[in-house]
């Protein structure tokens, strides 16, 4: 493999690994902050124990999100120097702003939250975790505005052999970036909801600490239901935005070959990329594709044949990932509706089938989020900045294949090791359950008032 292929593989490995941890942080920070606020309001000690237990899991995950994030910032320059030179004028700004306005806040207040139990007032302590939650979500906004620009470049002009920013407001109001932001945020909320529901289900099945886990489950089910429904709506807007701005990606997502007006939506499609057609197209809903994409049943949907093969993204990964993401999304809505109503009454812990399903459903939203990123990034190929710069022109010239081999192997080992440690620690902590020694917890929490 050449440096380009290796660099792409390395970027895929490191960013997908990073994105195992980020989305849980996005959602769980909010849930933990909510729990602590409830504790401050009601002085109900179950909420304090919930804060501590879910907070512990939050921190294990958070640590890996932080350390793998440094890689992301370094490797634009390391592996994608031509890209960095060409677009740094406009792409560097949101990254630098992210660090300044969000990452500092997140990293400083997490220290205060973890080590400040005895040093801050109850209220200030709860404010710390809320600031962490806000900062994490704000951080995602700037990163996704940066990514949104790569998907749908706006507010720039080509000058001095590079893309120069001409309109900062256009960059920060880029609708593509905002849709992506909400879509990503909500995917993190769904992941966090399934994480909390899954672990709660494990303990409810074992009949551990029923009151604690019923309440955790109920909180997560409510959060999960809202998020699953919203992500569906946002996802729909987002797909429409893709149809408008990235016709090649949209055609690959849906495996559309021929340009058509009033295109049908086929529930079952089997693509045959070698022959530039679909070998199966069944259960078509008339004109639905045109309607979903453009809000107009007669609108024209561009097919892949409209573009030369060199301009098309790899079809199968884009198409399959998109289908799997949509199916998962439907499943999340159904599961959270059932979970929501089941968690209302007092019978939750007797619903063993549902609890077993929720336990095993824990990894699904993680997978859906990874599929989503495959659609977003593979579907954008051959472009690194859609319509502006090809990925093949973006790779560093000074970096040899041997260097990237070495780094790729290094990342694989290091990240593999971290994954093992992370899974070990999360499983151990999750299985152990919340601290039952309330007196110790309360003592630590109370000394803060002295």
């Amino acid at each position, binding site marked *: 493999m050449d440096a380009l292929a290796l660099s792409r593989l390395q970027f895929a490995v490191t960013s997908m690994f990073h994105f195992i941890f980020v989305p849980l942080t996005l959602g769980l920070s909010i849930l933990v902050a909510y729990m602590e606020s409830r504790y401050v309001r009601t002085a109900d000690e179950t909420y304090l124990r919930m804060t501590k237990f879910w907070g512990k899991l939050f921190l294990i995950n958070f640590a890996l999100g932080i350390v793998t994030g440094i890689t992301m910032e370094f490797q634009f320059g390391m592996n994608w120097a031509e890209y960095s030179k060409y677009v740094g004028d*406009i792409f560097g700004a949101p990254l630098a702003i*992210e660090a300044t306005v969000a990452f500092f806040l997140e990293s400083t207040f997490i220290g205060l939250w973890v080590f*400040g139990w005895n040093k801050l007032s109850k209220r200030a302590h709860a404010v710390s975790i809320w600031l962490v939650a806000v900062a994490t979500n704000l951080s995602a906004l700037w990163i996704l505005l940066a990514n949104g620009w790569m998907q749908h470049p706006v507010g720039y002009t080509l000058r001095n052999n590079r893309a120069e920013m001409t309109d900062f407001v256009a960059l920060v109001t880029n609708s593509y970036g905002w849709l992506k932001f909400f879509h990503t945020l909500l995917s993190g909320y769904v992941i966090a909801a399934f994480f909390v529901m899954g672990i709660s289900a494990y303990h409810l099945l074992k009949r551990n600490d029923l009151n604690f886990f019923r309440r955790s489950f109920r909180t997560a089910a409510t959060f999960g239901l809202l998020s699953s429904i919203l992500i569906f709506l946002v996802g729909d807007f987002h797909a429409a935005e893709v149809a408008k701005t990235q016709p090649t990606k949209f055609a690959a997502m849906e495996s559309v070959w021929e340009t058509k007006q009033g295109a049908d939506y086929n529930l079952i499609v089997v693509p045959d990329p070698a022959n530039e057609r679909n070998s199966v197209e069944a259960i078509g809903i008339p004109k639905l594709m045109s309607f979903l994409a453009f809000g107009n049943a007669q609108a024209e949907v561009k097919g892949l044949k409209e573009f030369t093969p060199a301009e098309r993204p790899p079809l199968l990964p884009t198409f399959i990932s998109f289908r799997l993401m949509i199916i998962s999304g439907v499943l999340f809505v159904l599961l959270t509706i059932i979970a929501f109503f089941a968690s209302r009454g007092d019978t939750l812990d007797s619903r063993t089938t549902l609890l077993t399903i929720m336990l095993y459903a824990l990894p699904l939203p993680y997978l859906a989020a990874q599929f989503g990123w495959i659609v977003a990034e593979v579907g954008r190929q051959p472009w690194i900045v859609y319509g502006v710069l090809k990925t093949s022109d973006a790779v560093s010239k000074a970096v040899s294949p041997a260097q990237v081999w070495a780094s790729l192997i290094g990342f694989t080992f290091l990240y593999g090791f971290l994954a093992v440690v992370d899974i070990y620690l999360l499983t151990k902590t999750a299985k152990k359950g919340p601290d039952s020694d309330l007196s110790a917890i309360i003592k630590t929490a109370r000394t803060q008032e002295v």
Partner: protein
Amino acid sequence: MAFQIIWFVLWGVLWAVYFMLDGFDFGAGMLYNFISADETEKRIVTHTIAPVWNGNEVWLITAGGATFAAFPTTYALMFSYLYSALLLVLFSLIVRGVSLEFREKSDSPAWKKGWDIGIFLGSFLPALLFGVAFGNIFHGLPMDADGYHGSLLSLLNPYGLLTGALFVLLFLVHGAIYLAVKTSGGLAEKAAGLANKIWVVLLVVAVAFLAYTYFATNLYANYFSTYVLLIVPVLAVLSLLAIRLFAAKGQYLKSFFASCLTIVMVTSTGVIGLYPNLIPSSLDPNHSLTIFNSSSSVYTLKIMTVVALIFVPIVIAYQIWTYRVFRQKTTPLDIAAEKESY
């Protein structure tokens, strides 16, 4: 034109503050295995940096982000030319972070021992490699119209290694004094004793560095043309001496501030000497990366200036507040309380 200079100053400030803050984390991390007599002392040492290292490290992320946004060509070439060295820095920082976060998650001695090695390596390697990298930047990288002609090994030249040693020693003294301030009893005494001893070596290496710099780099040219700038290296030397003077009187907090000032002034001495270069070429000055030929457009620099002027003071304010919240010495009692909460 003026905006490039503003960002050059900010670029220097970000690196200087990063080294000042993460420097004591590195120092404490390097000393950690050798200074602590038992498990409680080990936990006291990590506890002195645990609440703040994360926020300190963001100064590096911001320095990187600012380089990207303000001087994209320098960011692109510096990071791709120094690929392997930066990769080692990256891996070390990842290891340091997870070692600090995960060490207390199990009581098994083997588990703790593994992370102890991680804390040492994750502190020592970045300290050394940042020094080596900056030494090579001060000296200039072998680059011309055909690109870069160096390798990981060519970075390990005598001047690069001397700068690496200077950084390691600066951070060791810095970390030792930090521990003298933040701990008590035997541990604090040991830290202070070590700071005094290492300081002597630091002084020797610092003198050698200043002398070697005259021969190996062009850094002094700006000082000879604008004498008033000499105040910066003079302050670096004076604050270096002040570290020892205050430490001898047992005034460790003042000694720590002197050590902070030393790191900021040493970094500034180098950065001022570079001007107007960010990375000089050791082969052909026409291929040096300057703040003018590698910067973003004035429009971008203006936007970033506004963002920096609003948010950097806010960051500084809440970080100072955080240090105030955690201003007390770490005692065995804190360790006991921590065990109960996490």
